[in-house]
């Protein structure tokens, strides 16, 4: 796993550092007030027992009250400053990740389920908040306040100071280590069983219809329970180490107090100082108490941020040319002995050659895994071929910028992303300045016009998260209308019918080909039978 220091993307900007420092200072002041409250109280009471004139006690009395008020106020300041700083760091981190993803997506994000990957990434990035608010700040506050307490005790009696130092050191090193060790140990021992339960639950819910229809509910539940019992047993076995860190912390604090008692009783100090030596360490319980929880959380935060780091570190899939050439006029595409693959894996496509004249219809078929989506990525310059070329009117795509290529070649995928906004905003993405007239034209060409016209809010209808308020077919049609508006001359359609039933898919394809007009259409599909018979096309089979 990558180390914290290597995680450049989470590092705060310089102007946020002083806000973090403010949060730390307020936190130390709050925790210090708790220590000060107990120390001055102990001094006050023990001194008062000798019944001195009240005047002597005025200063400690004021101090006790001041500490009492200060703790709450400083804690409030700490929380505000800490949250403000942490949100700033989060915003900056999100912006950096977005910038990096802009370079990587989609070719550099290997793996099939890109949507899941990205959704997970969003949650992982949020761990930055926990990192600052619940791990780094509390531990820093504990360490600084602990050190200050050590210094105070050492001033009164150096040997007692040494004892408290040991307690604080153990509390800030061994206790978090022990807690983290225990948590990791537990995680290791239950991870396998938990994965099995998760897989069983997922599968059972996904196949619920079959399980019920075939009266297999009892058998399936029994199998689930067997796995579940293994998980519960593993969790029970790993439980014994859970409280070790917390218990050690109690021993540390108690030990420091007893050390003050033993060392102070034989030293030549006043009774009031003696009481301070014995009682002050008790206040540390409050100060150091957050350390075990922080250590536990640190593990989760670290694995989250480690996943983000991995993504950030993935190599860029495409190198932009240093001096891009001008976009050629012609729109014919030629694929010449193309060889493509991901990372160190073997080739997904090899020795592929194709001719796609301007205005032609090419249907590329093949089973899943044959490299259809990979070919689409190369045609859009999302991915660099290992060898061979794609030529646009004789010009190698590699000598053009990605954005140049994509101003000519457009893409419709099986899961076109629809943004959580209005129909109009989603369409304006293609061309911000476009008139309503053209929007309606594109919608009617995509055969979505009547539907949108029937909606109460028309173009201003909100489509919901990932277009949830539209059916699968409507979503694809909306994405297609967007593609039409963008006026690309070459349309790459990558399994546009994948999540649609047969009939809907057939209708969509017929409309796609009809609306494409003069444009070149490259259809990648494993269901070529859905293509209307009257479309004159060249069919290519990938293996």
């Amino acid at each position, binding site marked *: 796993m990558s180390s914290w220091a290597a995680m450049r993307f989470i590092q705060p900007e310089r102007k946020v550092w002083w806000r973090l420092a403010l949060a730390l200072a307020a936190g130390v002041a709050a925790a210090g007030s708790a220590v000060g409250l107990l120390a001055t109280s102990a001094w006050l009471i023990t001194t008062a027992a000798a019944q001195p004139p009240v005047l002597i006690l005025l200063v400690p009395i004021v101090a006790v009250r001041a500490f*009492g008020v200060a703790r709450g106020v400083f804690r409030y300041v700490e929380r505000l400053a800490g949250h403000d700083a942490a949100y700033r760091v989060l915003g900056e981190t999100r912006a950096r*990740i977005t910038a990096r993803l802009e370079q990587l997506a989609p070719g550099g994000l290997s793996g099939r389920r890109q949507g899941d990957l990205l959704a997970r990434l969003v949650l992982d990035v949020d761990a930055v908040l926990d990192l600052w608010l619940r791990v780094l700040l509390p531990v820093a506050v504990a360490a600084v306040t602990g050190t200050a307490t050590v210094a105070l005790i050492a001033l009164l009696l150096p040997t007692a100071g040494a004892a408290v130092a040991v307690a604080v050191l153990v509390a800030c090193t061994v206790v978090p280590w022990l807690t983290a060790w225990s948590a990791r140990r537990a995680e290791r021992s239950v991870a396998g069983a938990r994965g099995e339960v998760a897989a069983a639950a997922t*599968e059972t819910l996904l196949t619920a219809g079959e399980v019920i229809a075939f009266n297999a509910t009892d058998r399936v539940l029994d199998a689930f329970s067997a796995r579940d019992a293994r998980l519960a047993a593993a969790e029970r076995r790993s439980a014994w180490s859970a409280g070790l860190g917390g218990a050690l912390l109690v021993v540390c604090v108690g030990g420091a107090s007893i050390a003050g*008692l033993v060392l102070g009783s034989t030293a030549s100090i006043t009774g009031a100082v003696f009481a301070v030596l014995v009682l002050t360490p008790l206040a540390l319980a409050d100060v150091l108490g957050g350390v075990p929880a922080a250590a536990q959380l640190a593990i989760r935060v670290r694995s989250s941020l480690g996943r983000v780091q991995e993504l950030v570190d993935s190599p860029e899939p495409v190198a932009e040319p240093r001096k891009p050439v001008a976009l050629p006029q012609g729109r014919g595409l030629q694929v010449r002995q193309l060889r493509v693959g991901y990372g160190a894996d073997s080739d997904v496509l090899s020795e592929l050659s194709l001719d796609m004249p301007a205005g032609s219809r090419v249907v590329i078929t093949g089973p899943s895994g044959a490299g259809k989506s990979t070919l689409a990525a190369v045609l859009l310059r999302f991915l660099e071929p290992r060898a061979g070329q794609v030529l646009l009117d004789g010009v190698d795509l590699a000598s053009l910028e990605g954005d140049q290529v994509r101003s000519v070649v457009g893409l419709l995928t099986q899961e076109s992303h629809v*943004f959580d906004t209005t129909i109009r905003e989603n369409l304006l993405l293609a061309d911000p300045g476009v008139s309503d007239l053209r929007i309606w034209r594109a919608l009617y060409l995509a055969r979505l016009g009547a539907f949108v016209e029937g909606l109460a809010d028309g173009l201003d209808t909100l489509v919901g*998260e990932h277009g949830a308020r539209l059916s699968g077919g409507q979503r694809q049609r909306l994405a297609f209308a967007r593609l039409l508006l963008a006026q690309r001359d070459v349309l790459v359609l990558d399994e546009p019918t994948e999540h649609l039933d047969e009939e809907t898919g057939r209708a969509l394809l017929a409309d796609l080909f009809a609306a494409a007009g003069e444009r070149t259409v490259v259809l990648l599909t494993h269901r070529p039978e859905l293509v209307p018979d009257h479309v004159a096309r060249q069919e290519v089979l990938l293996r």
Partner: protein
Amino acid sequence: MKPLDPRLLRRARAARTFLAASVLIGIASGALIIVQAMLLAKVIAGVVLQGADVTSAAWALAAVVAGRAVLLWCQEVVAQRSAAAVKSTLRRQTLEHALKLGPVWLSGERSSSLTTLLTKGLDDLDPYFARYLPQLVLAATVPAGVIGWMATGDLIAAGTVVITLPLIPIFMALIGWATQAHSRRRQRALDRLAHHFTDVVTGLPTLKLFGRARAQEAAVRRVTDRHRVASMSSLRVAFLSSLALELLASISVALVAVGVGLRLIEGHLGLETALMVLILAPEAYLPLRQVGLHFHASADGVAASEEAFRVLETPLPERGDRTDVPDLRTTNLQLYDVTVRYPGRDEPALDGFDLEVRPGEVLALTGPSGAGKSTVLAVLLGFIAPERGVVVAGGSAADEFEPSAWRRQFAWVPQRAGLRSGSVADNVRLGQPEASDDAVRLALLAAGSSELELDKAVGEHGQLLSGGQQRRVALARALVTDAPVLLLDEPTAGLDTDTEAAVIAGLRATGRTVLMVAHRPALITAADRSVVVGPRELVLA
């Protein structure tokens, strides 16, 4: 949100045991805290006033500290073990109930959110058991004991605590109530913010397609900043409740200390008592402060358990318990005026549909997409209860029968074959566990998939098989059963024409009743007759 959900105690026995153990541990911890305070007060007073020896007191204190450490450790271990048991109980009960509620209830968002709940969500109960509940118990036991003990020494100090302590929950509740709107607004702002980032990130490939990705970095920064400003102004108010808590607790301790000090000067109080009061006073507030601290950390766990209870408390559809289902090999099956409306939809999926299925006939259901063809199959399988109308077999309505007995009359091939990890044979045997290898092979042959090895692993969600192979395994799964009626949803999609013909011939040869959703002309002409589902207003897919 209730501090302690009684449903948790009712549903999970482990939770009750845990609560009992926690109360015992809490009482013991409280006792040790008091003993520790007494010992400390006594030995400090002894040293200050008489210069007494501390050796025996130091050992006694060491024993008390060790005892507290052991109790804390016990509490954690008990918490982890109980959490494991409670989670296991809830997982099993929830899954079982969800299956009883059926695939229609489970469809869409619900299935995925339930998967999250069963896999990750319930794990959030760990901090609830390990941190929050024990503190809640401590908050109920320790302050009472501590105040009682303080009262034996110094009534005024105890009085101060008694007066201020209840103020904490009162103030917290008041402030919480006053800031509720604020914190809701803040939560919404945070949600919107996270949502915007998710939308941008998942949409990046699309943005890049249209040359709009470059602007996103600045947009994310701008939106985040705007929301940070908004949420900070809410936080300033929301944190007031913890400010009140901290202030009250520490000012009260200061009040007690100063009061005790002044009474010491006047000679109304001994040093030992004064020290004991000073040591105990913060302990009275500590559990309450901790409860507040862990309350938010465990809120996720409580939310998860509430979600589980929401599932568990969803009433099951009422069904009869007769098991004497008429044999559909010889009995007609009728649907009269069946109207089905899916939850949350205005339009009925099926509107006044009539159908008669005679034994042994091959019947094709046709009609446009969305007309309710698959819904007819769902009604027959009992996945959804008709809003109006009735399914009748041999003069009895379907819902008089016990559901599993009724379903034994049917075998189903869904539009999307849901395969379970295991071998091909395991999947074929789903409805007929005792089927012999030969029977499985025969079924595969009839489904046009004789090339598949019985022990070939199908992988997660059947991904080691091609789409066509998955469908054929699903078909074989239905064929291997001895159910009199086959319900097929586009059974030959993904098959080539020759295989399709062979499969249809195979279906006829079994002599069973076949009700199939069909689009392809070849399939429709192969049926004895076809019924158009609908007509309804055509909705563009």
